């Protein structure tokens, strides 16, 4: 039997109150912490969503914005002429064309950087970002372009500023692994990507350029410090060093220098354009086709293997012809016509009469003999400066090759296909970066 004495109850009621106090305080603490943390994840989510949306829009705008074909012009005017640029295209088209030249983005790299800078300005210095092209199927040159907007905490690297700044860096990571190691060190990266196809000169000579599967990536993250110098307290230096970056615009680190492509492989001929067709008109005249090439720097290369072949339904027997011998392109300040060549379907005697040994392009005796002995009467001839010449240096940058029709004794509906290839056995071609930027059929 338990006996409770009424007079002793007062001693325990204060303990009850303290217990109550403890419980309520705990509840209050829980409420406070919940109230403080409430919505933080939602905050984060909306911020991430905003980032993602911004980045995907930015990528679209970068790829679809217009740009003048002449890298020296703005959308409004060309400094040389003061007129608006004649040719305008999507920036992505210009990038693809630049890549098709030699596998690099040396001509469009800076334009791309300027576009990205302008579009990302509203985010200010609160973020770092990277924009790059990735081509998984390429053996080398998997990452032909990598732009990095980096927080710089060393004032020595901030020209004209006495505090932290952001700098653009051009990078050349060796492969995907180097890139992955870098991105692995970054927290909270928002990224978007887009797939596209680039064209490049074929490694093995063929009628069509190679198709290169490509990914365009854009990654944004909140600014963090990255170790750009080695040291015991620089844990993420190795990952950053793998990017092989330099500050954009500094000596030795321009887009023209950093993003030079591998060019065409030495000693390997490539075909450009794939092919075209000559038709003979009903009045007996042939259409002509002009292939337009751009050549940069002084270059020496060999014209070879001009092939003219029969179309399947041709009634005219088109035979192959070769043009060989070194072609030396003078320095680019020579805004003159250098040499022209006509490839003529017609009488060999008539064509031979135009041959002049003193010109840049000439046929070897062997070629001529072959042509002369051929009953198809197909010859190639070199002319002096007259309006019929076909290889010429336009302005400072262009060489064109025109294939023209004969004007004598033509049967109707003749059709020939031709291909023109260049080879560079001595490596000058690659070394001096020969660019084909355009093919124009006139």
């Amino acid at each position, binding site marked *: 039997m338990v006996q409770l004495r009424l007079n002793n109850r007062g001693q325990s009621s204060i303990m009850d109150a303290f217990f109550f106090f403890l419980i309520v305080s705990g509840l209050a603490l829980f*409420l406070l912490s919940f109230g403080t943390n409430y919505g933080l994840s939602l905050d984060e989510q909306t911020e991430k969503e905003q980032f993602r*949306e911004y980045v995907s829009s930015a990528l*679209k*705008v970068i790829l679809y914005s217009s740009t003048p074909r002449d890298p020296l012009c703005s959308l409004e005017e060309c400094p040389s002429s003061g007129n608006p640029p004649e040719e305008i295209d999507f920036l992505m088209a210009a990038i693809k064309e630049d890549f098709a030249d030699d596998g690099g983005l040396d001509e469009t790299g800076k334009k791309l950087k300027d576009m990205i800078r302008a*579009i990302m300005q509203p985010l200010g210095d609160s973020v770092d970002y990277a924009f790059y092209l990735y081509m998984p199927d390429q053996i080398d040159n998997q990452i032909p372009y990598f732009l990095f907007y980096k927080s710089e905490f060393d004032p020595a690297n901030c020209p004209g500023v006495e505090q932290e700044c952001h700098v653009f860096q051009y990078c050349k990571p060796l492969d995907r692994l180097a890139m992955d190691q870098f991105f692995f060190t970054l927290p909270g990266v928002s990224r978007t990507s887009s797939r596209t196809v680039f064209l490049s000169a074929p490694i093995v000579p063929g009628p069509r350029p190679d198709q290169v599967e490509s990914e365009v990536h854009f990654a944004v993250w909140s600014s963090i410090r990255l170790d750009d110098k080695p040291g015991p307290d620089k844990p993420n230096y190795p990952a950053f060093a793998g990017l092989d970056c330099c500050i954009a615009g500094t000596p030795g680190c321009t887009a023209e220098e950093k993003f030079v492509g591998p060019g065409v492989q030495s000693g390997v001929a490539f075909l450009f354009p794939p092919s075209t067709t000559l038709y003979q008109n009903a009045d007996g005249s042939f259409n002509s086709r002009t292939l337009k090439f751009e050549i940069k720097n002084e270059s020496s290369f060999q014209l070879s293997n001009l092939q003219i072949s029969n179309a399947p339904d041709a009634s005219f027997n088109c035979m192959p012809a070769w043009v060989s011998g070194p072609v030396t392109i003078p320095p680019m300040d020579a805004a003159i016509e250098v040499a022209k060549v006509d490839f003529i379907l017609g009488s060999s005697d008539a064509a031979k009469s135009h041959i002049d040994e003193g010109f840049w392009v000439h046929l070897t005796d062997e070629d001529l003999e072959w042509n002369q002995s051929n009953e198809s009467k197909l010859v190639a001839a070199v002319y002096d400066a007259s309006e019929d010449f076909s290889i010429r240096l336009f302005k400072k940058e262009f060489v064109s090759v025109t294939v023209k029709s004969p004007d004598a004794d033509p049967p109707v509906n003749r059709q020939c296909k031709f291909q023109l290839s260049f080879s560079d056995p001595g490596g000058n071609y690659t070394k001096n970066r020969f660019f084909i930027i355009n093919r124009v059929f006139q």
Partner: protein
Amino acid sequence: MRLELQHRDPKPKNQRGFVGPIGDDLPSLIPLTVALLIFFSAFGFAFNSFEEKKIEFDQRLLLLGLGKTMKGDSLLDLYSEWEIACNSLEVSRYNFRAVVFTISTNDGAIFYNYEFFKEWQAKDDPGDYFTWTDNDRIFQMLDASGTSHPLVCDREGTHATIGSLDDISREITLNKNPLRVNYPLAVLDDKKFRPAILSVMVWYN
């Protein structure tokens, strides 16, 4: 178990300090009161916090929604697209304005986040102030008839001219807890897609 309550002498010698059933509980009222005070303070704080955050989330989600609607697919090639998007917006409780600003890709060109306000300053010269209605960075787009319109949208819909816009003062707007979002946009202008920035701001009515 059986409880047996026994009432004995009300104030025996060994129970000093006993002042009766109520007087005996008085000290315990102090922690009780403090606990209740703490609890209701915390409750009030949490409630206010929830309310504030809910409003902020509403505002933020509205902002994102407005931004996405006006941005569309990030390519604006017809003025009618802008008009349709603007007219599809129905916003209550909040005020908003969406504007497309031109940007330059030239070296050194800067986009100012405060261009929204009538006090925005375009140059380093502190005396060189522009009013909202003078803002020539607002993108002007031609409609199908060839008439130029500023790419602006607010609760009144689209605007025919920049002159018809109300000024937005930074000082006044800042008191109304404005939120803002920017998105890049490519806008067709004379057969060229130009890069631009869509800015959307939402604030209390």
